[in-house]
């Protein structure tokens, strides 16, 4: 079974600054996918960024980028130029490759609450 650990329950950052959220995971799989989801106070789960384990290049989506260290089983999220709208819970999630019999289930970490201060 896979486990996902987020060791930072809460973090804060000043507006326009950069913050990094940590995530580690444990798996015996070689191929898998990693995700960061954002959950604002509205509760909606929003996909921020996705990384395929077979890709060495770190994924980037505008102000969001990841540092994927496969050997260390680490998957951190960097938010640049933080904005007030980035205030939310952030969840790291793991997924094995899709299986026709098992779908593509996500295993979530416990989350990091990020507060962006003006």
């Amino acid at each position: 079974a896979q486990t996902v650990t987020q060791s930072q329950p809460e973090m804060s950052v000043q507006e326009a600054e950069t913050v990094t959220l940590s995530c580690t995971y444990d798996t015996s799989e070689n191929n898998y996918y990693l995700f960061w989801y954002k959950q604002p106070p509205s509760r909606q789960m929003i996909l921020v960024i996705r990384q395929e384990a077979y890709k060495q290049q770190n994924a980037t989506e505008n102000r969001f980028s990841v540092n994927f260290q496969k050997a260390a089983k680490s998957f951190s999220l960097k938010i640049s130029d933080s904005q007030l709208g980035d205030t939310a819970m952030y969840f790291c999630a793991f997924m094995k490759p899709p299986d026709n019999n098992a779908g593509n289930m996500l295993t979530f970490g416990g989350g990091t609450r990020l507060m962006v201060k003006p």
Partner: protein
Amino acid sequence: NAGVTQTPKFRILKIGQSMTLQCTQDMNHNYMYWYRQDPGMGLKLIYYSVGAGITDKGEVPNGYNVSRSTTEDFPLRLELAAPSQTSVYFCASSYSNYEQYFGPGTRLTVT
């Protein structure tokens, strides 16, 4: 295109009551999922379905049942509500691009 919709948004149940949480998606996704999120925690998988007529248990299935008679609908049934089932419930769906699309959630309180 409404995506994934869930009803109701909020519900208070008394211990021992039953209810069905509704979930519908209009994206023709094969895969559907039910998660629960306890306060301050990540989501945990309750049940999932890989297509109409096919369902299977996830990590925390006890106290719940599901059915999948159509591609669009994936209701979650609580038969005898218990305080431990107080949580926020999310339905999600996906196809083959690995991204799961989530509904807005249902906040359930059992007292």
